[in-house]
């Protein structure tokens, strides 16, 4: 069961797609924990099962996914055995998500304000929602007037800020950020990461951060798990893993980030 220190414990989780010879073990016997107020980074190449692991936590996985065993312990309960209704109560209020593509992750036909308000409506009763929305936009350094804007009228960076505002609307305990900056310009990436780091400190938020980028790992994460083909191949304290990677795969991944090792990283990326 969840120990006092950990907010989330994933134990021996397996998620498969397809049947027979076409079975894809997207997540294969994976275990990791996220401590209170800590940031865990999940890294790995494309298709290694990071997103599926993250979505499994609140059963947001695609319909084709099959849970083949394991547990996801959060707040003393196994999320995988909760009913749809109970899960809805947790999604957005205790566990929030930030997705990779801000441009398509908002509903194009509703305003940003409407979409943030929807989260508030669902989980927080008896507050002045207008005030709360402008407060949330303030938090992510956006002007109030953007509440009446439609997604297509905003830039990717602005939208990702809105996404953060929406995720934090109901003061969740755990934030799952699935490659929150991959789709953004390099200059904007920095701002968003700084914002995330700042806010998670401010409200003592636990974060599960999914990324390709070891730069982000070293800046934000306390712990790191390295995934390959659905399995965790290496884990540990961030400094420890970065300074002395044990697994060849981790070394390859690190070598593939030119920012950290410009001398080695000039060649063709082994990823993808």
């Amino acid at each position, binding site marked *: 069961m969840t120990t006092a220190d950990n907010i989330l414990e994933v134990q021996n989780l397996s998620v498969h797609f397809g049947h027979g010879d076409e079975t894809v073990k997207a997540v294969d016997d994976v275990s990791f924990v996220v401590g209170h107020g800590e940031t865990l980074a999940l890294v790995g190449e494309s298709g290694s099962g990071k997103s599926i692991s993250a979505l499994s936590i609140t059963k947001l996985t695609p319909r084709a996914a099959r849970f083949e065993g394991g547990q996801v312990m959060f707040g003393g309960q196994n999320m995988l055995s909760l009913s749809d209704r109970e899960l809805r109560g947790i999604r957005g*209020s205790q566990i*929030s998500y930030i997705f990779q*593509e801000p441009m398509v*992750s908002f*509903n*194009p*036909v509703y305003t940003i304000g409407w979409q943030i308000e*929807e*989260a508030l409506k669902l989980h927080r009763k008896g507050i002045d929602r207008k005030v709360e929305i402008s407060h949330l936009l303030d938090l992510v350094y956006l002007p109030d007037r953007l509440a009446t804007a439609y997604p*297509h009228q905003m830039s990717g960076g602005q939208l990702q800020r809105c996404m953060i505002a929406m995720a934090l609307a109901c003061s969740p305990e755990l934030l799952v950020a699935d490659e929150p900056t991959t789709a953004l310009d390099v200059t904007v990436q920095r701002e968003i990461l700084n914002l995330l780091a700042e806010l998670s400190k401010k409200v003592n938020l636990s974060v599960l951060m999914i990324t390709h980028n070891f730069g982000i790992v070293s800046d934000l994460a306390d712990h790191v798990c390295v995934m390959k083909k659905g399995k965790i191949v290496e884990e540990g304290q961030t400094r420890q893993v970065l300074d002395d990677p044990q697994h060849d795969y981790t070394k390859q991944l690190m070598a593939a980030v030119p920012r950290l090792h410009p001398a080695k990283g000039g060649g063709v990326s082994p990823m993808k």
Partner: protein
Amino acid sequence: MLKYILKRILQMLPTVVGVILLTFVLFNVVGGDLAAIAMGKKVSLQSMESFDEQRGLNKPLFFGTRAKSRAYEDQDFSEGAGRWRTWSNAVYSAESAAVMLQPKSAFSPIAFKLNPDNDFEWTISFRGAGTLAGRELASKDWKTEKIRFQGMEDGGFSTEKDTLEIRRLKLRRVVKNPFDSQLLYYVKQLMRGDLGTSESLHQPVSKLLADGILPSLSLTIPIFFIGVVVSISLSLVCAFFRDTFIDRFLVMFSVALMSINYLVYIVAGQYILAYKHGMFPVWGYESARYLALPVLIGVVSGLGSNIRFYRTVMLDEMYKDYVRTAFAKGVSKPRVLFVHVLKNAMIPIITNVVIAIPFLYTGSLLLESFFGIPGLGYLGINAILSSDIDVVRALVLIGALLFVVSNLLTDICYAVADPRVKLK
């Protein structure tokens, strides 16, 4: 917004021109001899000529200074003697591919009295001597000459002591204004709002259309609305239960519905429900009760393809990222479906719905004739069966123009429903 609408109207114009051109090409160019299609081949040449005259069909197609006349059909004697066989003073020889007029003969190949106000022109390849339309012809060798004469003059041949051999002979009416073509006539007629006259019913087409529109609408509007509501609801059921037994069943069901021929719905519905079980009147257009069965058949026959279309639209939306975001916020499935997905799906749905509007006007061709509803569909089928050119052309043209207009309406609806469009 106004600017956007104006721009769209401007973009619509080429299609309108295209539609007018296409109906023109279909009926006037491809159609060839409309008089023969409309009246059969047995009527006199003169009544065909007046049919042509009335519809401007005796003019050049697009542009020209000469037009054919039915008074004399072009003749090339290398292909046979044709109508000349019946004239005893003309001797046909296949060898020289020509006819020879005997000496001292006089006759006119012109079939009926020409319009006295027009000028005409013979083009003749001949040898020998004689007169044509009062002009002397004389040449030892083969020679081609053009002879112009007025409609009131006698346009016939006469010979004195010599023979006249003819190889080719053409009669043309001289057109005073070369732009006075069938196309111009057609466009002018449309500008006046004149859609022509029905040959079989002897009434102006516009009156027939005005009479038929209400019965048609009383049939198609209920079909349309009930159809849209039922198929959207069923497609939502599919989306809600996607990949379950219910969804799969509905998909199979709609393919089966689609595969049943329209005729079968009508015949079976009329026979089983109306005739055998007496649940509905079999035929007629007297009260709302008479419409119930045709409406039912209309709805059911369209259901299959509509469900499939709307389901695809809904499912396409269900796989978009914003749906996952909504679920991640803790939104319930019905709310995701009805509040998030449906509003996005409205955009393709509107297109599909508005585009169907022109078909409301054409009515339902077969339903109307089977159930005796005196609408435009009934009119259309009868017009096709009796080759009533003007009626068919008017129905096709107006149907097409309505389609173009509904396209415009769709775009305006788009702009209202989708915040992204306004900026463009």
